[in-house]
Each structure stands twice: as structure tokens, then as C-alpha cells.
């Protein structure tokens, strides 16, 4: 399928400094791309550049095969829709806010009414249509902001962290609605967020921006399970990142010397390669310590296919909502995320000896 937009070697400068560098990125018609990265990573700059609102100093952006520079600026802007972090609604009624973009396009009045009413209803804000937009709650305002973009039936919808200022229940509802709307309309969209859950929910592909540079693009599975470098790994929630070296390689399985231990991983890397050994905390299982019985026999750990079994002591316990973040000192700090129930059953406490395990397939190696 043809790319809706295609970026080649893009560079954006501000005050003489390069603030955004994207070697290559393309989005297919109907695809939803989630752009993730920490604050200040250049995500909004990318979005505003795509919206034709920021000039780029090098490279090329093509829209349906045509370079952006060759398109009429206003005509191009009228083919896209933009939803920003703040709803930035006009000091006018909800109806007039949603109608604004259509009026800019000189759409006939009956059609404006029909389309605005459709999207008012579709976003569940029909009852608010006469309300002054400035008197809406945060969630309602962002619904109006979404309706204002969808009503334009754009070829490309650009969303810049639209839900980041909302409380969790409101955000969850809006995310579900947006997901349904994107599916229903088949719109091509670029959705910016620093929230990994949002990216996983909405993005068919995920692009990671860190420090103004596009570091990785791929399916959510690829990005979350196989980050291309340490910073991407840390951003996507890999919490145990150890420098190491492959010391044994056999039939797609390797042994890595890292953190003073020999750890197994699934990889085709050759012996001698320096790597970063990456592990997500939710892939680590914790169980009572394997203390030898009096007769010298080892106890049987819980039945599991985990190839890596480590002994250590609980270094710290931090409750996180329904979960508990456990740091186990195994010679290096191993991060684990377990449920509160598990933590209670295991009677975990700081200083307690425990065993930890994880599958070889859960580990991800990044060549250095």
C-alpha cells in the first residue's frame, strides 16, 4: 500500500541547533503510528513539522508521493487535522468550536450543521452543543477538540498528547473512544504520547524519539521486546540493563557473562560480542529461596521452564498501585514487578533471601 507520508533524512533546527533528526519514517494509508519518547524528545516538533507549521532545515517530507515543499501551504493544512495537548477551544459555543474548521473551508451551512451534529453525537457531547466551550470540564473539552478534528474528515490526523492532562478514568474512556473512532473511520493518524500504555493501545506501529533523534520504529512487540539501544530499552520499561559479553552460543541459545553471573538468553549473537542484557521487571518471577534440605538434596522449585535461576536478598519493596516493585540483589540489582498478593504470600521483607527466575526468551540482548 502507498505511504501517506514519507520522511527522508529530516532535520529541524531551532536557534542554530538541530532539535529533531529523523533518518526515515513512513506511515501507510489507514495506519496509526504512536510516537513515544520522554519529555523534550522532539515529539511535538515532529508533529508540528508534519502539520506544515514548522519549517525543516534539511531532508524531505512527502505527502502522497508529493514533496511538502511543492504543495500549497494552506491547501495542505486543510487536508490534515490537529489535536493539541491543550484543547485550546475558542471563546464561543461548543457547536461553533466544532464548526470552526469547516467555516474556514467555506463549507455550506446545512452541511456544517449536519456534520457538526453527527460528530457531537458520536463523541457523546451532543447535549453540550450550546454551552460556552470555556465552561467545559477537561474531558468534555478534549472531546470537543477531537470532534473539531474528526469533523474535518482529514486525510491525516495528528494528535499531540491529547489526554496527558486528564485524570485516569476520563483518559481511559477517551482512549477507548478514540481507538473505536480510528478503527471505524480508518483514518491515518500519528499519535504522540509519553505513556506506554496509550502507545500499546492505539499504535499499530511505534516510533521512539529520544534526544531529538528517531531511534526505533516497529510493531509494539518489536519495540517493547527488542529495543535497539539502552536508552530505548530504559524508556520502554526494561529496568534491568546489564553490560556483558556472550561467552557461549549454541543453536539460538547464548550464555552471557553479566553482573558477575552466567545468564541464558535466546539470541543468535556470536561468542565474544559485547551486549546489553535487558530484562523487563514483569518477566521476573520470585519464589522462596532454594535452601538445601537437611539430607543435602535440593528442594524442587516451582515447575517452570525458566532457564535462569538466581539467588539473592530483597533490597527494597515499593508498592505501585496493585503491584509491588521488588529489587533483588543478586550481585546486581534485579528488578521485578509482582502482585501485592504474591508479595504477601511470600512474606517479602527487606533483607529476606529469595530466588528469582526468568525465561531465556524473556531476556533481550542489544549488541554494543
Amino acid at each position, binding site marked *: 500500500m502507498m505511504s501517506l507520508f514519507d520522511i527522508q533524512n529530516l532535520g529541524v533546527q531551532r536557534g542554530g541547533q538541530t532539535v529533531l533528526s529523523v533518518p526515515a519514517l513512513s506511515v501507510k494509508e489507514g495506519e496509526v503510528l504512536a510516537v513515544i519518547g520522554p519529555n523534550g524528545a522532539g515529539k511535538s516538533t515532529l508533529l*508540528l513539522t508534519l*502539520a506544515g*507549521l514548522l519549517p525543516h532545515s534539511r531532508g524531505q517530507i512527502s505527502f502522497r508521493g508529493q514533496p511538502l515543499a511543492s504543495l500549497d501551504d*494552506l491547501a495542505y*493544512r*486543510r487536508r*490534515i*487535522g*490537529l489535536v*493539541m495537548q*491543550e484543547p*485550546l477551544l*475558542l*471563546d*464561543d*459555543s461548543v*457547536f*461553533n468550536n466544532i464548526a*470552526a*474548521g469547516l467555516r*474556514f*473551508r467555506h463549507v455550506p451551512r446545512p452541511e456544517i450543521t449536519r456534520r457538526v451534529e453527527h460528530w457531537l453525537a458520536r463523541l457523546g457531547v451532543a447535549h453540550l*452543543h*450550546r*454551552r*460556552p466551550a470555556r465552561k467545559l470540564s477537561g474531558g468534555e473539552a478534549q472531546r470537543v477538540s477531537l470532534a*473539531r*478534528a474528526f469533523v*474535518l474528515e482529514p486525510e491525516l490526523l*495528528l494528535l499531540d498528547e491529547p489526554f496527558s492532562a486528564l485524570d485516569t478514568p476520563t483518559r481511559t474512556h477517551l482512549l477507548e473512544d478514540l481507538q473505536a473512532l480510528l478503527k471505524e473511520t480508518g483514518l491515518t493518524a500519528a499519535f504522540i504520547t509519553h505513556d506506554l500504555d496509550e502507545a500499546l493501545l492505539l499504535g499499530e506501529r511505534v516510533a521512539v524519539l529520544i534526544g531529538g533523534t528517531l531511534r526505533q520504529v516497529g510493531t509494539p512487540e518489536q519495540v517493547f521486546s527488542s529495543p535497539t539501544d539502552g536508552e530505548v530499552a530504559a524508556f520502554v520499561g526494561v529496568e534491568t540493563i546489564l553490560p556483558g559479553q556472550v561467552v557461549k552460543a549454541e543453536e539460538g541459545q547464548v550464555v552471557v557473562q553479566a553482573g558477575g553471573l552466567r545468564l541464558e538468553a535466546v539470541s543468535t549473537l556470536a561468542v565474544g560480542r559485547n551486549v546489553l542484557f535487558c530484562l523487563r521487571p514483569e518477566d521476573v518471577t520470585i519464589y522462596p529461596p532454594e535452601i538445601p534440605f537437611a539430607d543435602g538434596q535440593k528442594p524442587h522449585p516451582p515447575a517452570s521452564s525458566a532457564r535462569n535461576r538466581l539467588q539473592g536478598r530483597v533490597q527494597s519493596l515499593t508498592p505501585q498501585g496493585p503491584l509491588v516493585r521488588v529489587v533483588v540483589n543478586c550481585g546486581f540489582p534485579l528488578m521485578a514487578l509482582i502482585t501485592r498478593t504474591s508479595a504477601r504470600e511470600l512474606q517479602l521483607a527487606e533483607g529476606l533471601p529469595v530466588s528469582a527466575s526468568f525465561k531465556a526468551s524473556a531476556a533481550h540482548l542489544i549488541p554494543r
Partner: protein
Amino acid sequence: MIPEILEVTSLSLQVSLLATVISLLVGLPLGTLLALGRFPGQRIALSLVNTGMALPPVVVGLLVSMLLWRSGPLGDLRLIYTPTAIVIAQTIIAAPVVTGLTAAALQQLDPRLRLQLMGLGASRHQMIWTLWKEARLPLLAALMAGFGSVISEVGASMMVGGNIRYQTRVLTTAIVLETGKGNFGPAVALSILLLALAFLVNAALTWIQQHGQQTKTHQ
């Protein structure tokens, strides 16, 4: 007496309203350019306009007199001691007020609103029109301040108009004249008239302002 007072009042109103309208035609685009444009010397221009807001009317009177004086550069136009001369002087007084307050009104808006409007497909003109609508309350206040600065000034009107009976006498110059003669009764009456006039015009503008505030809650 009464017809003369009516004439003086009418001339005051005509001259000051005309000066205010011309100031708006000059000040609205200029203030918008100063607030939204990006050009070298923008800050200096803005501080010049802000200084102009405090321009003493007598200095403006002197400047316009020198320009329009029979032997002056624009003397051939024979405008000195005419209502037109008063309009010119009052426009020079009100224009910086309207310009400066227009710039301030637009600078108060969220700068991201411009990006959002462009992102909604607004042309440059549509964007500016929308920003004016967003800033309509402070913009009307700018207009009121402009009118207030000229309806009440006396120095410039006296100097370039000459306070000629039946020709260029306005309320403020008439008050100065009557007070000078010790005729406090007529001076007080004219002052009340001037206050009433200023009140009526501002009340009308305030009504428009507040009416806009209420109706915008409806579609």
C-alpha cells in the same frame, strides 16, 4: 445659548468619534502586526508605541500646529483652525493608545492558539479575524480608552482649532474659555455635559462588550 451648546457638543462628538474611528483603522492592523509579526526592530517599535500612549496633548498640538501653520510644510492645505486639524491632532493622540492596547490584547492570548487555528485550516486572514474575536473584550476596552483620551483633551484642540466660536469650539475648549472669564455656571454645565457624553459613549461600548460576552454562550 442652547443652540450654541448643542453645536459645540455635536462638534465635540463628531471630531472625537471620527478621530477614534481613524485610530481604530490604523491601530488595529498596526497593533496586530506588532503582536503577531516577526520583524527586526519589533521590540523598539512596541516600546515607541507604548511611549506614544503617554503623548502629552500639548506636544501633539505644537507638532500639528507647526505642520499646518500657514508658513509650515502643509500650510497650503489651509487646515489650521479647522475641525479637520482637531481630528488630525486627536488621531495622533488616540492611535498609539488603540495600537498599544490592541497589541497587549493579542499578546495575552495563548500563543499556541495560532498554531491550533492554522492546524484547523485557517488562512492568515481567518486566523487574525478569529484572534480578534477571541480578544474582543480587551479590544473594545482599547477603543474606549482611545475615545476617552480624545474626548477629554483640551490642549491640542485649543492649539490647532483655535477655539473659534461656531467653527472649532468644542466642549473642553469652551469650558476653558468660560472658566477663564469667571463664568463658573456655564463652565460647570458644560463639564456635566462632557461627562454625560463620555458616559453615554462608554456605556454604549460597554453594552456591546457585555452583550457579546452573554450571547457567545449561545450558538
